[in-house]
């Protein structure tokens, strides 16, 4: 075997491991942090598991905070995100297909406008969206969050680039010659082939919705309707380490390990969804389709 080849592989492996450490160590740290008391967090080495009892105590404290509001926050996040994803995918996938594989007047305009709205700073859109929702009396309802979530231009572009760069045109025209109508071609041919990108769109939409902060922050004023991301902000401002402005003895402030646990709970949902989405993203779906 060629020695230089082996040493190159070794270098490659080392680079990958270094980046793994960079990306993953902070995440692992959060896991460890949930087993520590606030004091141990600052006094013990970052990578020690202290006690499962501390974890259970933190769990109880977190889910007992403000009469169990954490549970409501998680449920709300699920409703808003899944609702947003369903509508977004339902709109984005056909749109990406239409933009990539059909020709119509206004196609480029649509692509251009989509890009402009994507580039527009999100903070600038908060007020207009709020006024819009208020004019139809939807503020402080789940719809004020779900409906804007359903507009997911990022996904449209993902689909557009996917359909325009990877679906073999000969396959489509063959199907058309075979007598499929346009909807049939999309449903029975393009959509199955597009499974990886549909998963990708759904996944990114899910993460974007789950992590969105400002839209629900502005739209919803009832604390019981907030999603977990906005909730986390309240937990942070209830933590002395982050908000020392007015701490006092004997008040029920949130401690950092409970905060770490809240973070862990919030991200574990995304992690699980990612693992499921990965399955659909596995190699070979399309490679198989194009091999004659």
């Amino acid at each position, binding site marked *: 075997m060629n020695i230089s080849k082996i040493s190159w592989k070794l270098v*490659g492996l080392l680079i*990958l491991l270094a980046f*793994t450490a*960079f*990306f*993953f160590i*902070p995440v692992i740290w*959060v896991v460890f942090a949930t087993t520590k008391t606030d004091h141990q967090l600052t006094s013990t080495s*970052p990578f020690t598991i202290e006690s499962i009892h501390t974890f259970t105590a933190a769990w109880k404290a977190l889910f007992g905070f403000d009469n169990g509001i954490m549970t409501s926050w998680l449920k709300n996040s699920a409703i808003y995100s899944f609702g947003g994803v369903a509508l977004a995918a339902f*709109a984005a996938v*056909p*749109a990406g297909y*239409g*933009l*990539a*594989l*059909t020709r*119509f007047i206004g196609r*480029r305009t649509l692509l251009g406008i989509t*890009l*402009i*709205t994507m*580039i527009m*700073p999100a*903070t*600038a*859109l908060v*007020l*207009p969206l709020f006024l819009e929702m208020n004019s139809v009396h939807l503020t402080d309802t789940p719809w004020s969050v779900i*409906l804007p979530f359903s*507009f997911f*231009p990022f996904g*449209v572009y993902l689909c557009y*680039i996917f359909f325009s*760069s990877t679906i073999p045109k000969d396959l489509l025209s063959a199907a*058309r010659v*075979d*007598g499929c*109508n*346009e*909807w*049939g071609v999309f*449903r029975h041919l393009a959509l199955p082939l597009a499974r990886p990108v549909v998963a*990708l769109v759904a996944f990114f939409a899910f*993460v974007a919705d789950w992590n969105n*902060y400002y839209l629900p922050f502005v739209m919803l004023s009832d604390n019981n309707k907030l999603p977990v*991301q906005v909730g986390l902000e309240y937990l*942070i401002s209830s933590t002395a380490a*982050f908000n*020392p402005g007015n701490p006092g003895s004997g008040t029920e402030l949130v401690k*950092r390990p409970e905060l*770490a646990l809240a*973070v862990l709970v919030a*991200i574990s949902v*995304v*992690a699980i969804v990612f693992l499921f989405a*990965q399955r659909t993203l596995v190699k*070979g779906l*399309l*490679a198989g389709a194009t091999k004659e």
Partner: protein
Amino acid sequence: MTTPSTASISAGPARTRTRRVDGALPVGGSRSAGYFFVALYAVLLILFGVIPTGYAIFLAFTKTGGGFAAAFNFTRAFSDFRFLPAFQHIAEFLAVWLSAEVVLILILALMLHSLASRTSAIFRFLFYMPGALAGAASVLVWLFMLDPTLSPWHLLLKGFGFSQLNLVLLPGHLPFVFALIAFWTGAGGWIVVMYGALNNIPEELLEAAKLDGANAFQTAIRIKLPLIKKWVAYMLILSFAGGTQLFVEPQLVGQASAGLVSNTWAPNQLAYYIAFNNDNFNEAAAISVILLVLGLIGATFLVWRTKLFEIN
């Protein structure tokens, strides 16, 4: 084995004729079909994209009390003492972050693509995880990661001569710190996208390259990269625009460090501050429009260079 869906594809000419008689959509990528596919999205685009954007632009040219303001909001923004420093900050940040993005994401995606798919799935998961830690969640994490006495990286931080959080967050370091955090949260997602794009390169192309005697490096540069050009362009457009709109990182690091970072460090923070703390949505909208224009200049350049809108 035959479900209705496969049948309709393989049934052949006989069905074709009946369908045509039924007056179904004509064959061959018609216009009406195109409208049909984009209809729902177009409605959403108008409601939640065009109208709010249009309103924001309208605000930028309107006085706070109403009435056409011409360039008033813009000149006011330009003359704000925080305006130039904010744009200077963001320029430094973009230089660091974009170069890291393009180089490292492509290298990592190409490396993962050369691995067995199971191994690479594990790496993709590990790389992606920080993406789940957005917004408030990363406040907590980064407070600790950047603190030299507590961080798992304390050896590295101390190696750079940082003995205290205050020293890590000196003004000159901030563009690097934010680039680091932004890369940490954002890179995994783009690696997944790039990996997916690489996966869609037909096997036979790669096989052919191998037969021609190209080594892995040459294949990556000459075959793979040109084929995922559109994806790279897309990433750059969004990253450039997203980078100019930096908000979360300075905001959260400022919060986690009791205000060591100004709450008007980046232009988007400045716009937010002016909008909500001064209740001047018009001047804020003007700053947003400036950011939009910057993003569009970058985007137009890339769309033109990479032919992103063309379909062959």
